[in-house]
């Protein structure tokens, strides 16, 4: 057993961090956030991510991919989360098709296509795509206006359909995260309103697996954000002077920062383990602890920043708002807790 990162994995992480810092520095994030109107996906950045292998990371080399596994994908997504890189990264990565032979969306692997996701167990009927969402709240879809296609996850199957076919049944909401535009897709009236546009064949029986991978890669982004807010809090606490000394010398502030690190490192161990085992219980634990680490750390980071943390100008709120959005995507904390509870009743669960 050697849980530590290999040399290659360290190099991948460094490479991804360098790419993010060069191609999506703070100024780029602020430009997205402060722009008038709905934030659009930066197509040239998307293609650059494609060229760097971000979307094709897990495709076999024979298929033009990088041929790596989920642990490497988790490291890449952790860096994206750290940089608050906007866009439907997870669904474009999944639509590049690493998870099922023959299932992919054209252009996703190369970063030519932007593929967002619609997670609705009632969405796929026997023939074609029909959005039948359960309940009245509808389903949220990110970056729909920028997207070329939508990865629709039904109860068992998955299918990719053109984004323009979803648009008529979607209404924009004012997203809490200025970098993640959201649409609400409601059911009922749009039954059988969509046609499969020939983007892919239907992926039979792969929805559960895609959901687990989506939850894990989202957790990896949460982890990256949680680790980043620790650094931000520590940097602020070390530099901000009150009462003649850095506020980081006060135990009340120190203990907030220490608890943040504990949350981030606890989440890290579970997220990495889940990437190796791909066990649903491990993924549920990763979802739960990474969501909690991202949200709680952003809150504590805000607190450490004091009044500055409450301003639009500071980046802290962007971490918190994105963490809220991600926590709502794929497996929620409540669902993860129920999944883990159910596993307690099945003896010999492989969690430990």
């Amino acid at each position, binding site marked *: *057993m*050697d*849980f*530590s*990162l*290999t040399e290659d*994995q360290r190099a991948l992480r460094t490479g991804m961090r360098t790419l993010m810092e060069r191609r999506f520095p703070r100024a780029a994030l602020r430009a997205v956030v402060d722009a008038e109107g709905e934030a659009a996906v930066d197509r040239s950045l998307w293609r650059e991510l494609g060229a760097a292998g971000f979307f094709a990371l897990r495709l076999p080399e024979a298929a033009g991919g990088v041929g790596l596994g989920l*642990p490497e994908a988790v490291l890449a997504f952790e860096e994206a989360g750290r940089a608050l890189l906007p866009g439907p990264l997870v669904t474009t990565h999944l639509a590049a098709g690493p998870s099922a032979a023959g299932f992919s969306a054209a252009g996703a692997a190369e970063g030519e296509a932007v593929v967002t996701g619609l997670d609705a167990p009632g969405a796929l009927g026997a023939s074609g795509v029909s959005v039948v969402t359960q309940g009245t709240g509808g389903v949220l879809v990110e970056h729909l206006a920028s997207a070329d296609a939508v990865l629709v996850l039904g109860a068992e199957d998955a299918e990719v359909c053109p984004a323009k076919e979803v648009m008529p049944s979607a209404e924009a909401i004012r997203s809490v995260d200025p970098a993640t535009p959201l649409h609400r897709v409601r059911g009922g009236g749009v039954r059988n309103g969509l046609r499969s546009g020939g983007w892919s064949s239907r992926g039979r029986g792969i929805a559960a697996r895609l959901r687990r991978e989506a939850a894990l890669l989202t957790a990896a982004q949460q982890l990256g954000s949680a680790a980043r807010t*620790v650094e931000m809090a*520590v940097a602020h*606490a*070390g530099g901000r002077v009150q009462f003649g*000394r*850095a506020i*980081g*010398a*006060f*135990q009340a*502030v*120190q*203990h907030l*920062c*220490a*608890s943040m*690190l*504990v949350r981030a*490192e*606890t*989440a*890290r*161990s*579970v997220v*990495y*383990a889940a*990437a*190796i*085992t791909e066990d649903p*219980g*491990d993924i*549920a*634990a990763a979802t*739960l*602890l990474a969501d909690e680490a991202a949200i709680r750390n952003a809150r504590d980071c805000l607190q450490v920043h004091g009044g500055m943390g409450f301003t639009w100008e500071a980046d802290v709120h962007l971490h918190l708002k994105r963490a809220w959005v991600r926590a709502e995507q794929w497996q929620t904390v*409540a669902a*993860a*807790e*129920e*999944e*883990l*509870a*159910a*596993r*307690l*009743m099945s*003896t010999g*669960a492989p*969690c*430990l």
Partner: protein
Amino acid sequence: MDLSCTEDEEDFRHRLRAWLATALPTLPPRPDPADWPARRAYDCGWQRMLYDAGYAGLHWPEDAGGQGATPTQHLIFLEETERAGAPYVGANFVGLLHAGPTIAAEGTAAQRARWLPPILRGDEVWCQGFSEPEAGSDLAALRTRAVRDGDTYVVSGSKIWTSHAEVADWCELLVRTAPVNADTPKHRGISWLALPMDAPGVTVRPLRTLAGTAEFAEVFLDEVRVPVDHRVGAENDGWRVTMVTLSFERGTAFVGEVVACRRVLESLARTAKANGRWDDPVLRRRLGRLAAHCAALWRLTQWNVSEAQRTGGVPGVGGSVFKLRFSQVRQELYDAAAEVLGPDALDAGEEWVVGRLASLSYTIAAGTSQIQRNIVAERILGLPKGR
């Protein structure tokens, strides 16, 4: 990132399992928890069985009489023994995990030959004399004095929170050998001594804990004579010598408890199912959340062991992160247990309730959670020294 075991490690696990299957049925019945001599005999009997089977001092270096096992093998050993329900290290905790490794790392050849083999065989039991009534979290403020008189130190003072003191043969003792002044900060001037517990002037008084049992003792030292050659490391260098020991304490010392956490949680779920409380989604989700935390404790352990293996060092910074989370989760587990048990949680005859009371020490012993956060803030995060 690889969580699978190598062929050698799997082989080790299978041989260990096979041995445990034959060895455990030969154990005598467990002793009464209040009967300290019986507990010592039981724990030492188990240690002797380990010794005879070649499992004693697994993680100790070979030149100290250990097996020189890798951290992963040690982890497998702790995991498998706990799963099989083998006895806890018990009275041999300090010898095997604190005093022994310290002597192995810092002792002379003669000291290693004198003290290490009896620890491995389960012949001699050690206790720990670090904390004092006026030196808890601020351990370096300790005041027990050792005054040199020819070839002996004359030691006077008192120690507290000493487990197994009633039945120990030796005590790893921290004493002040140089007074604190302008030239000597409190971390200097401390020495590490091996104190024979039967020396004249040693008085042991059991300390009753809030659980109602005597798990610790106070040790009073009144002009106790300790030979100078019982000092490990240089005079006044005991603080550095001790740090080696403390980092062992925060490494793999809790592996058994982490494995136990999962078992406790599963049995709690079964109890809740049986008494109907499982139907309450709030409680169910609470247990699910604890399952995630238990899983994380295991992964953190694997992470720390791997990092220790990679860097070749003793477990370091990860230990404080682990200890903070572990102690918190362990207490939350018992709070959840109380919710499952309802009125039964007030019956001190229940094993759960005893465990709940004992768990109250976890955020205090071996460095309080507040001290651990100071360590994390200053040593890992690099924040300015606090006040």
